[in-house]
């Protein structure tokens, strides 16, 4: 209500219709466009790409490494270097970290390094096919927002009001499950399922006795994904298996975007075809919200080209298998399966949604 307060006392005494008129006038003043024009006048119209090409002599003269080497006096290196702050002290602090896209930032991650093959296939072929396949016609001119709204809200179980104590009582979760399942959304032009990330995890219970198992597992995941894996701990006590809670007995890592597509590409075109008597992925996989998973046996890990290239360096008996979780933007398992099938992964057996 700041604007209302800014309006002077005399203006407030005016009849409402006049205020409305003056309000519209201020809205149409277009101060922003005037300012933009002033800024645009300062811009250079010539693009750097359109600059005339250098002559061979000019190119020869321009040797930055030579100039650096010939420099007699240099300032101490600390004068050239800027180190971003170690800690973020909040948005109001005078010292701010550079954005993560800046190569000097502490959280900078280089990339992308290429345009993955599988991603290009997805963009050029798979996405439009999925959209056509799953098209659900809704006659234009009708509003369907209401239906969607009904579907997604009020999914918790209410109380019937038979007791006075039901008033203001919190609603309950659905029967049989403490959490609400995702509602499947239709595949539309702006909701085509896509690969989001892939998590690769191994469980190495032998590592409780001998830590070297953990080292091998870490090296294996590092070689396959190119990221530094993190070590996981056991969650529960199971005496028969010799497990105690909180022991370091596993390794996992997550890859996103291009790296995830590259990994999936290697699985589909190199690893799966070379597994003996491989039927496909079980049709019952999936968590009900568009994330599918499968596993690799220890013997199958040797097929990965990154491991195969120096397989002799790994102690073969200590090489663990792993589980692969593919997370997609699909909201149901059948949509996720449609995506992975289109990318080239076969499923077998009973299909569960």
């Amino acid at each position, binding site marked *: 209500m700041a604007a209302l307060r800014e309006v002077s006392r005399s203006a407030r005494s005016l009849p409402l219709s006049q205020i409305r008129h003056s309000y519209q006038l201020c809205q149409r003043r277009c101060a922003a466009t005037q300012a933009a024009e002033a800024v645009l006048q300062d811009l250079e119209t010539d693009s750097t790409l359109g600059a005339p090409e250098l002559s061979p002599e000019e190119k020869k003269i321009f040797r930055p490494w030579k100039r*650096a080497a010939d420099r007699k006096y240099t300032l101490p290196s600390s004068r050239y270097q800027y180190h971003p702050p170690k800690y973020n002290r909040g948005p109001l602090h005078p010292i701010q970290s550079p954005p993560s896209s800046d190569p000097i930032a502490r959280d900078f991650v280089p990339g992308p390094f290429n345009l993955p093959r599988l991603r290009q296939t997805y963009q050029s072929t798979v996405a439009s096919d999925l959209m056509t396949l799953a098209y659900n016609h809704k006659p234009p001119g009708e509003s369907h927002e209401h239906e969607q709204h009904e579907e997604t809200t009020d999914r918790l179980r209410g109380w019937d009001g038979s007791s006075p104590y039901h008033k203001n009582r919190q609603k309950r979760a659905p029967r049989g499950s403490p959490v609400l399942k995702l509602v499947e959304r239709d595949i539309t032009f702006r909701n085509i399922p896509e690969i989001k990330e892939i998590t690769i995890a191994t469980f190495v219970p032998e590592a409780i006795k001998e830590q070297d198992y953990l080292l091998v597992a870490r090296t294996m995941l590092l070689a396959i994904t190119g990221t530094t894996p993190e070590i996981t701990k056991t969650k529960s006590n199971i005496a028969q298996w010799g497990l105690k809670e909180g022991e370091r007995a596993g390794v996992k890592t997550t890859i996103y975007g291009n790296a995830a597509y590259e990994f999936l590409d290697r699985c589909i075109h190199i690893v799966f075809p070379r597994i003996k008597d491989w039927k496909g992925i079980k049709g019952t996989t999936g968590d009900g919200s568009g994330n599918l998973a499968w596993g690799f046996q220890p013997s199958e890990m040797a097929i990965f080209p990154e491991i195969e290239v120096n397989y002799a360096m790994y102690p073969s008996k200590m090489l663990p298998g792993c589980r692969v979780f593919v997370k997609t933007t699909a909201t149901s398992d059948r949509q996720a399966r449609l995506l992975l099938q289109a990318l080239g992964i076969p499923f077998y057996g009973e299909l569960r949604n």
Partner: protein
Amino acid sequence: MSASSRGGRALSSLLRSQHTRQTSSVPRRVCIQCANTTTTTTTTTLLQSSRRAYSATATAAAEPSSSSSPIPPPPVTTSSPSASQQSQDVRYRIKSGIILTRPPLLTRQLTPFESAFFLYQKRLNERLTAPFRKEFYFKQDTATDLDWKIKLKERHGVPAKDIGRYNPRGRMGWNDEVMVGSTTSDHELGVVQKLLHDAEARVSEDGEEIVDEADRVKPEPPQPRTTEADAKNDTRRLDRKLDQTLYLVVKRKGAAQKTADGKGGDEDVWTFPAGDVPTHEALHETAARVLAESAGVNMNTWIVGRVPVAHYIQSPPPTTTTTTTQDSSSSSSGRGEKVFFLKGRIMAGQADLAGNKHGYTDFKWLTKDELKDTLEEDYYRSVRNMFELR
């Protein structure tokens, strides 16, 4: 949002609520911008403008209706045969066509900017990641180790094969940009050639260095991106333009009927294969049948889904007596066409027009850009939205 603008919003909403109290028929759910711009206009236009959808305007543009109602009627999708609509529908023949496509087989060529950017990112990565551990990949004094040493020396000690001469850790680590005209970042000239040269074995199996270049076993270079069909520009072949989508078009001999504006005539026209939909067939069944009848059965194809991806409406030619009258439908020859296109994919095989039932004389596999020159303009405009980006 600044505090003052928030105040402005509140003020405008206050004014609007005053307004609604006076005229109670204004809907509550109107966005702020619309409400601001239309406070002076009447409430009826506000209602209309808020309900006017893009699709409604599009259909209005496609079918110029003779009636002058301000809001066009919604397009009928389910069969609701009222008398007036039936008489209108008879003026059109429903046809089903197929747009058979061959998806791109190759990745696309990178732009110079992209390849330069990727090289820059690779060099940044070299600066930030742990150095390469040779001992983990090559056992000491084996043939592969010797081979590696020779190649590393040739690369001036840079373990990475595709980043050119760049030492990320030395004094010159900052110097990570390539000069003008360098081919280091170029995929075909720089990276592929480097990798091919690197793949040659430089040491024999007994650990002897192969000094003579003629004795080295050269790896097979990758196939070129362009093929013989590209060189000849043979538009009938499927192995051309490997990094783009190809679409099957057929030549229809001497279109019998003229279009609404009198052109068309006897010239040959390039179209997608299409045929009339009989009453007992669905669109996708007709599309499959038309494809088999026109382009032969020696193709492994897949029709994507059962819904059309594009449609083309050819309005009926103007009748000789008066301008568009409702009862001119009795003459079946002067009917227009509504063609619905389904999308198909070809996996193997080739089109063969010999003995086709639809009178097609020639076929071509064309890319999106070539289609623009080949198809008629309004035909192209009605289908262009289904084309892939490449």
